[in-house]
């Protein structure tokens, strides 16, 4: 699936200061019965977001109009648990373009990158500053500059650089996907098979 290009993003943030947010919370299993990639955004964080009758729970951040934006800021070890890519689809489907945390689970990170969602891993200190800044002013914006691998908290100008695999960076900047790349090296794959099969 071709992905959206990601170059630079300036946005307010939605804070979720909880650690170990697992993919069962991001999208509970009972919503995994769809056979397409669309529509998961409606059930993002479903059990935290809606009560039993499906009404929005007031105290959950996605239902709090104070906060909005394309950047989700979450506690450490975000996306642990199941490999369900539906978690990334739900976050993208809801309208987020980036997730900031001090630590991401491996498979979630790959799944995000494969869907044009940028995982931005920052230090614990920077994450704490972000949470505080957002609490102080929900309109506080961050700028995420993929080319320079830099995230800046605009009200204070404080910035930090983040890591990304150079290959994945190129894919995101250009909207390339891995399968196109792999289909293009078919000769090499065939050669490996001849030697090993």
């Amino acid at each position, binding site marked *: *699936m071709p992905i959206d290009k990601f170059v630079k993003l300036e946005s307010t943030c939605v804070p979720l*200061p*909880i*650690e*170990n947010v*697992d993919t*069962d*919370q991001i999208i*509970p*299993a*009972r919503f*995994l*019965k*769809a*056979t*397409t*990639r669309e529509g998961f955004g409606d059930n993002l964080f479903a*059990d935290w977001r809606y009560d*039993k009758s499906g009404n929005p729970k007031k105290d959950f951040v996605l239902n709090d109009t104070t906060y909005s934006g394309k950047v989700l800021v979450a*506690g*450490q*070890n975000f996306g*642990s*648990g*199941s*490999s*369900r*890519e*539906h978690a*990334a689809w739900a976050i993208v489907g809801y309208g987020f373009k980036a997730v900031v945390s001090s*630590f991401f*689970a*491996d*498979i979630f990170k*790959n*799944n995000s990158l*494969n*869907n044009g969602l940028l995982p931005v891993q920052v230090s*614990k200190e920077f994450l704490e500053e972000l949470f505080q800044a957002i609490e102080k002013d929900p309109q506080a914006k961050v700028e995420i500059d993929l080319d320079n691998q830099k995230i800046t908290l605009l009200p204070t100008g404080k910035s930090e650089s983040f890591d990304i*695999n*150079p*290959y*994945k960076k190129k894919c995101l900047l250009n909207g390339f*996907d*891995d*399968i196109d*790349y*792999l*289909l293009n*090296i*078919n000769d*090499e*794959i065939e050669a*490996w*098979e001849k030697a*090993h099969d």
Partner: protein
Amino acid sequence: MAGKTLFEKIWDKHVVTKVEGGPSVLYIDRHFVHEVTSPQAFAGLRDRGIQVRRPEKTVATADHNIPTLGQDQPIRDELSRFQVNKLAQNCEEFGVDLYGLNHKWNGIVHVIGPELGITRPGMTIVCGDSHTSTHGAFGSIAFGIGTSEVEMVMATQTLLQNKPRTMRINIEGDLQNGVVSKDIVLYIISQIGTGGATGYFVEFAGSAIRSLSMEARMTICNMSIEMGARGGMIAPDETTFEYVKGREFAPKGAEWEKALTEWRQLPSDEDAVFDKELNYKAADIEPMITYGTNPGMGIGISQSIPKLEDIEKSTQATFKKSMQYMDFQPGDAMIGKKVDYVFVGSCTNGRIEDLRAFASFIKGKKKADNVTAWIVPGSHQVEAQAEEEGIRQILEEAGFEMRQPGCSACLAMNDDKIPEGNYAVSTSNRNFEGRQGPGARTMLASPLTAAAAAITGKITDPRDFL
């Protein structure tokens, strides 16, 4: 030059090429497919107008959505039925073997791969499912992938992967009576946390690991994902070869001899260097139980839930949320807590050895009246063997019901949901909020601890009965 680790030997052999400054292109020997994470990948192939490149290296099963009662009837839940049917259509269209509902080889994907001899040492194995790490118990590189990656493997039989770092976890010595492999892995996770091995591929080693059966090794590798690891693995040895030999898809005759020679070369060299190494003593491990909402929140069964002040500051909010969800108080003892449900099954503990352990524990006793118990074999073959060994009868005499195979209450995509607010002792791998049904409260444990809970109706130390 230092020797190579088990992981490096397999990895290096399977690298087709390396992207400049980027990941490696890794050749995949076996691709397991199930109904939940594959439909979008098949659709992707269709959109691109391409085929499954090596259908003979691909095998599918339906396990997540299927009911555990009345499998001969059409699935009642419309969406589940649609998804399972979709898998059958996709497999038909793309020429992939499917062991679907009612097939004699149907079962949980991580149970059937090994029992059919499809999973073998030295292989690279993937599946759109995080517990693919299970197959690492055979000395293979096995890990879970997302759906975009499922499509990648279907299209090219390769995967772009960054080489993870390597970790070895050594468990030395003899286990206490009543302590089994599930306790070992819950213990490790409680020590290093759910992110403790993120970025690593873990090799489990040491005398306590070498003495385990294949089923027990699978339980450990299965849960390596719960410590954040990319995957887990155990060096193949005579126990491994003995298990694989003679199975449906295992090599036979001269092929077998050739394979054995290769497999014997796989274990990590004496002088191999790991990026990180951890050591634990088997004797320190008690029967384990979890009290919170991630698998790292586990303690020895005789211990108490940590107090708030024992928890790191930054984690306190998360800890409190978890206590609230479980309706437990910090500092509470686990022994004696009430239990409403017992679930024995899943790709962690749904194998014949697990059913045997459970059955021998409860034999001649009676299920507590306040407990609803679901005993769900991991596959039809496990079910048939349990039947043959008289396990079903032992269970029934003690008031238990053995259901039909599937993932069942491990993730509650079918009707097997623990009701809101109820407490379940579960032999599965995840105690996340809502994992076993909205509002369900899960305590992870071994089949022995589950058995002790099932007959007493509360959290009980299984050693009291041994």
